[in-house]
């Protein structure tokens, strides 16, 4: 990589990248190769393509990209054929590879119909339209759905995930071809630091790490703080169970984070940056490290970037995966080599942060928004989303929806549109019960609030929070007391243990919930839980304890009667809490097939062939095996 210190050099790199992204003669086949696609088998599919290429002596480019978002249909293979629509195949297996290649080579697409096609697409960075199809659309393509017609993609707006699944994250020129580092060039050569800060303020960008603090205001405080050295930090700790948007960005588009940080550092006056990534994200660490080296080689990190009097570099730091290390002061302690414990925030990190110097910490997704805000302007950005929550948000949509994956939507979209539109509704047509948002210390939003627009303030008002953007969808087979117990168990283990209310209080709440779930709930427990919550929220040192009671409070707010049924009726309406449920076989439905008898591990299910079976309650351990295996709906939960 030659030095990129002028606009001209940037253009040259972009040209090279474009030739790779839109080859004029060769076919380009890319496979999403993120941690989750690898788990779905992407690596062996990739190898199968290489094998087939070698065996049949074929000519095409193979590329590993970041994630395409739609995780329940991974591995996804994306094919760019010169001058033809861009195609994607879903759920590709090793066996299908030869067929796919043959189809693509002959443009005969009957045997394995592609999942979707893309004829044209807006380049979000420039606002221009990319035309894949040159000339008339060949007939073979017309029966393939357009990507815009697929519910999962239809209402998404890919701003921060614009490059994920498109570019090869190992190739900086492809990033540049998509508008990368142009924002930086503009910032450094056309704007004063104050103007950049103002631009971020005007954009209305709010921190994507959970708190939703206005990013530009934070930058301004840090810029104004006194200190010889200033630092910028990227928070890539991402500890929420079920959340993986930051990982996806770090794996799939590392340069965008780096570019955002360089712009931020220039605006703030920082000379050193750190990206704090959890060690459980090896691919993210690898891709970030490589990107930092590439940027350094190109002169985009280091001394006199774009010939300006501005020098900045970035180090990658690995965290050991404690949830609390995502908290700003704990993260800084961990970076300094101390135990990851938070401190009181009466001195602000923007003034006294890392090594006691002014420090600006932002989340991965926050940094990722920066280049495009600079490139397209705050006005463009603030038109996306709502008045108080501008831009987009990436959500990890998991749980009981038909479609699972990362979805980026404009802020303000309703939960209904996310769950039923993008998510395709509830798996097995069951009843929607609640969606848990905001990570472990978030809350559960009930059915009556399905039309709630997602935004920082809207979610907070509903007793939950935006958090980092996790969305766990639950159906009627979920017990809300059990869910609250699950999150409290997580928090009890992940509390740093420094202060009394958090260390002792959360586990005391957990043990009351355990009692409730196992039939030992007592009159007065609900009131006690509420009182304890007040004390823990008020008394805790940091926001972990300060928000830890939320799973209990939000489920109490919307599902109190479910708690009462557990406590007073000693029953679990959702049929989850083992000690409160009984499995019974309905004589009139049972035809004596014996499946339950064979699967029962404790010989509780008995009966003769073709005769209704019975379950001995003294032997039953509520493992559900019989319930799952019965095909005649003869087993009920009471």
């Amino acid at each position, binding site marked *: 990589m030659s030095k990129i210190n002028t606009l001209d050099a940037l253009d040259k790199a972009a040209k090279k990248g474009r030739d790779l992204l839109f080859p004029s003669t060769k076919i380009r086949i890319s496979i999403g190769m993120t941690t989750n696609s690898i788990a779905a088998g992407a690596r062996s599919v990739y190898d199968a393509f290489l094998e087939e290429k070698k065996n049949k002596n074929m000519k095409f480019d193979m590329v590993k990209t970041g994630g395409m978002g739609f995780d329940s249909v991974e591995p996804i293979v994306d094919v760019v054929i010169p001058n033809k629509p861009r195609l994607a195949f879903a759920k590709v297996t090793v066996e299908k590879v030869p067929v796919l290649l043959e189809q693509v080579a002959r443009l005969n697409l009957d045997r394995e119909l592609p999942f979707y096609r893309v004829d044209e697409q807006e380049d979000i960075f420039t606002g221009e339209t990319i035309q894949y199809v040159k000339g008339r659309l060949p007939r073979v393509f017309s029966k393939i759905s357009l990507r815009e017609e697929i519910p999962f993609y239809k209402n998404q707006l890919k701003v921060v995930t614009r490059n994920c699944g498109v570019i090869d994250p190992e190739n900086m020129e492809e990033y540049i071809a998509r508008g990368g580092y142009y924002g930086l060039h503009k910032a450094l050569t056309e704007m004063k630091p104050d103007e950049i800060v103002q631009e971020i303020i005007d954009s209305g960008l709010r921190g994507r790490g959970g708190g939703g603090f206005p990013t530009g205001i934070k930058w301004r405080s840090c810029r104004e703080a006194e200190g010889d050295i200033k630092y910028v930090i990227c928070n890539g700790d991402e500890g929420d169970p079920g959340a993986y948007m930051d990982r996806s960005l770090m794996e799939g588009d590392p340069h965008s984070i780096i570019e955002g940080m360089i712009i931020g550092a220039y605006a703030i006056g920082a000379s050193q940056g750190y990206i704090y990534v959890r060690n459980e994200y090896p691919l993210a660490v690898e891709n970030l490290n490589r990107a930092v080296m590439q940027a350094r080689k190109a002169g985009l990190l280091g001394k006199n970037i774009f010939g300006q009097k501005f020098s900045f570099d970035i180090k990658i730091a690995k965290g050991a995966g404690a949830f609390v290390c995502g908290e700003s002061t704990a993260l800084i302690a961990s970076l300094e080599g101390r*135990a990851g414990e938070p401190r*009181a925030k009466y001195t602000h990190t923007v003034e006294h942060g890392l090594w006691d110097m002014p420090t600006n910490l932002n989340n991965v997704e926050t940094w990722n928004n920066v280049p495009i805000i600079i490139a397209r302007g705050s006005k463009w950005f603030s038109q996306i989303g709502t008045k108080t929550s501008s831009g987009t948000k990436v959500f990890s949509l998991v749980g009981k929806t038909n479609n699972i994956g990362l979805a980026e939507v404009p802020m303000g979209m309703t939960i209904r549109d996310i769950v039923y539109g993008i998510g395709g509704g509830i798996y097995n047509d069951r009843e929607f019960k609640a969606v848990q948002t905001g990570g472990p210390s978030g809350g559960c939003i009930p059915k009556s609030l399905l039309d709630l627009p997602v935004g920082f303030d809207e979610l907070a008002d509903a007793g939950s929070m935006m958090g980092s953007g996790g969305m766990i969808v639950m159906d009627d087979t979920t017990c809300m007391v059990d869910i609250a117990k699950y999150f409290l168990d997580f928090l009890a283990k992940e509390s740093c*243990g420094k202060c*009394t209310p958090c*260390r002792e209080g959360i*586990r*005391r709440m957990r043990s009351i919930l355990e009692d409730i779930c196992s039939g030992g709930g*007592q009159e007065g427990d609900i009131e006690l839980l509420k*009182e304890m919550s007040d004390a823990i929220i008020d008394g*805790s040192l940091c926001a972990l304890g300060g928000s830890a009671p939320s799973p209990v409070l939000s489920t109490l707010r919307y599902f109190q009667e479910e708690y009462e049924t557990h406590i007073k009726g000693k029953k679990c309406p959702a049929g989850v809490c083992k000690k409160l449920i009984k499995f019974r076989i309905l004589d009139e439905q049972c035809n004596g097939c014996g499946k339950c008898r064979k699967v029962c591990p404790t010989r509780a299910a008995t009966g003769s062939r073709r005769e209704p079976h019975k379950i001995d309650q003294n032997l039953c351990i509520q493992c559900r095996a019989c319930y799952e295996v019965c095909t005649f709906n003869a087993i009920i939960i009471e």
Partner: protein
Amino acid sequence: MVKLVIDGKTVQAEEGKILLTVARENGIEIPTLCSHETLENTGACRLCVVEITKGKRKKIVTSCLYAAEDGIVVDTKSDRVLKVRRFVMQFLMARCPTSDVIRDMAANMGIAPETRFKPSEDGKTCIFCRLCVKACEDVVGVSALGFAFRGVDKALGTPYREPSPACIGCGSCAYICPTRQITMSSTENTRSICGKTFKMKACSVCGRYFAPEEQLAFISKKTGVDLEALSVCSSCR
């Protein structure tokens, strides 16, 4: 100087002085478990919280860390404050039911144990106030003690639960521990603490065993004072 109101009383305070000190200097008692005059406060026990009103906003702050500000109104006994304190004491009573220190302190505050909390049975009385850790690190300067793990598993001890090579047997941790979790035992010429037994040095004048040899060696190395000169006990010096 700044002017503020604490429990209805208008007081003057040096700017930057922490609320806990200001309150105490004015005869207002705030209970604490993790604050010690020789150590930097860490805000761990949360007993010292108070409620302040600043402009229109009310919030709970940690009085051992929060600096006095002009114009704030401090309530050291508001309902919110008392609720936090009650639960902190009830949590600690359940955590270390055998500690008479905690039990007496709670009784003095008029707080009874919460029957819904099952008392721990491990017999430990550590309340994680971290005074021992801070004293060992900041005053003695050896960092022989620390915490391992986090959350419910958090535990105080020496690294890997083995006798610490860094420990010099000075006994500061045992001395500062408010709940007697850390204890020290002695024979005429030995001292045992934190899983390690130390040989004591006899005073070269009176012959009384007065300090662990390792401690004297540490002091000599740190201060540059000759070990010989340190082998006289304080009464004979």
